[in-house]
């Protein structure tokens, strides 16, 4: 363990996480940890964040009962935590706004971010516009094509969107390029990483700013149902949404479940399911479950959902899974698309393709005898309309 840091850098029995960063970034990461700790202890920062989450983001987001979908699936009750109703349309704004506030507190004037589906990029661009920070977002060219509306939204918010052409042109390459850009500008810029991954302290930072999802949901479900559900379900790309929803239910003795992208097949390169296809490795600064070949080169991934199309599971979530505290399942592209359609038809809610992977687990949960489920609807599906149009022949 790197004893230069104060917060624990490793997760679980196998010591996932860590800080595998180039030396240029070590001092900025140490500074970031110190600023994060100071902010957590500062009532002024907490009050400012809380006010912004309420008045700008629109928190608390609702917990919506979904009785028609529940009946259709054979569940007694289903509750949807509506992060799709957060400003900019996904849970990503919780972390982006908090980190932007932290960056301003640190005296940083420029923000760098990566984005896959574009939700983190849009959230970061919006937070930067609100706080008067300059923003550059790195995005793979494949993702720019399939999430074009989000590219336009980022540009409207004044951000510069830099296309990344390397490799498959998806989230992994965007993170590579954002890390490189940060190394060149780390004295004036802060890197707002959007997933619970990367070198310490990012995984801890991101999930700390996302657990508001689960904290709210837990109180809301008590209020509405008078009891906790039997299972809590979230989709998992890097793990910001998964950890944000699942961590506050840690002591409750219920099933906590994360759903990965099963893509269109089970061979390496056809999916982004790290649990049964991945091996322990280091990517983007942390040790975790990673889709890779025998040489330690990162494997290609595939998913209809840009936000889940990433070869590594965030280290804290991977540790919870390996230690038996969270269950991981996979949902295929087709299952996710069908689940999205069913939610639209029964409840009038258009989910993001990422969230649709969590929805796709519900038939199996019902078949296993679960009666009450709380599901994290991480984002709205407007950005995915072109995919829905073509794949569902609308």
């Amino acid at each position, binding site marked *: 363990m790197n004893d230069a840091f104060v917060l624990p850098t490793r997760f679980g029995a196998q010591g996932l996480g860590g800080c595998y960063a180039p030396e240029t970034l*070590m001092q900025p990461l140490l500074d970031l940890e110190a600023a994060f700790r100071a902010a957590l202890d500062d009532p002024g920062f907490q009050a400012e964040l809380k006010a912004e989450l309420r008045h700008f983001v629109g928190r608390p987001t609702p917990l919506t009962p979904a009785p028609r979908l529940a009946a259709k699936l054979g569940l007694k009750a289903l509750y949807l935590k509506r992060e799709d109703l957060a400003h900019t349309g996904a849970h990503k704004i919780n972390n982006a706004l908090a980190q932007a506030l932290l960056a301003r507190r640190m005296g940083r004037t420029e923000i760098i971010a990566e984005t896959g589906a574009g939700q983190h990029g849009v959230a970061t661009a919006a937070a930067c516009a609100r706080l008067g920070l300059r923003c550059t977002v790195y995005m793979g060219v494949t993702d720019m094509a399939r999430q074009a509306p989000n590219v336009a939204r980022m540009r409207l918010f004044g951000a510069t969107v830099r296309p990344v052409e390397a490799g498959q042109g998806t989230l992994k390459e965007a993170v590579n390029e954002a890390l490189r850009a940060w190394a*060149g500008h780390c004295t004036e810029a802060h890197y707002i990483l959007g997933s619970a991954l990367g070198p310490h302290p990012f995984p801890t930072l991101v999930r700390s700013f996302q657990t508001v999802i689960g904290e709210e949901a837990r109180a809301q479900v008590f209020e509405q149902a008078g009891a906790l559900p039997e299972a809590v379900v979230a989709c998992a790309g890097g793990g910001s949404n998964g950890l944000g929803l699942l961590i506050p239910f840690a002591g409750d003795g219920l099933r906590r479940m994360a759903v990965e992208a099963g893509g269109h097949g089970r061979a390496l390169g056809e999916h982004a399911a790290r649990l049964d296809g991945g091996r322990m490795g280091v990517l983007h600064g942390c040790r975790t479950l990673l889709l890779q070949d025998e040489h330690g080169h990162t494997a290609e991934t595939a998913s209809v959902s840009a936000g889940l199309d990433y070869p590594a599971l965030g280290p804290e979530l991977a540790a919870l899974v390996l230690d038996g505290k969270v269950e991981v399942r996979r949902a295929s592209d087709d299952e996710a698309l069908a689940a999205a359609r069913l939610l639209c038809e029964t409840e009038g809610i258009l989910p993001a393709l990422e969230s649709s992977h969590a929805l796709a687990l519900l038939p199996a949960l019902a078949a296993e005898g679960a009666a009450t489920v709380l599901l994290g609807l991480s984002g709205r599906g407007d950005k995915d309309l072109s995919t829905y149009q073509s794949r569902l022949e609308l």
Partner: protein
Amino acid sequence: MTLNPLLPFLMAGDPSLEALPGLLAEARALGLDAVEVGLPHSDPIADGPVLQAAAHRAIGRGATPRRVLESLAGLTDSPDLILFTYVNPLLQLGLDPLLRLLEPTPVRSLLVVDLPFGEEPGFEAELRAAGYPMVPLLAPTTTSDRAKALLGQRPDPGPGAPFAQRFAYVVARLGVTGAGQGTDLDPVVARVRDLQGITARPLAVGFGLSDPASLRAVRALGATPVIGSALVADLTTGRPIKACLEARLV
């Protein structure tokens, strides 16, 4: 100890693994103490466009870590080698296979870009004990106190050891490899002088420039200039390595 005048970087497998022994022999004939050999990696987060492209070309031609090390086995007409790599390929090989692959090669140390001291303590200690110390890296953001700590954690084995095992690598500019930011050498000079104030060990300096005058300016400080991206780019055009290096030794 006389000054090693230049530390070249070659990407293994670019232009080809077959060409590598010949390139190393040329470097030795020019009297260079050491050469950095890069293991091509799929996600080189600290490298600029030239080395990224070289790594991807090399991977496309089958330059896996195992094949790279096998291509170095038994070389006698080579300078000492510093294996420049990211940590994941080493972890995937595993310690014992890695040591077996290293043993017959001229590799004398490892420069692992994304392995701060303390992240893989057992792995690093075993490699050091087997004769493969990690090169300490000192960045523009490394404070003086941190630099002292890093130099202590990865200590100089002393004057009896070769340059490849003694030197510290100074990243003299912010950013990725090959990123020259203007031609103002003053910050580089100041940085090297600062570090020479806290350590007597040899310093190699990567600073994103490759013109003879800039290289001479680094040598004039008593430090070894690194030439990486510019050399890799030159070799891609088919220019012989002898000419590439001689032009930078004047």
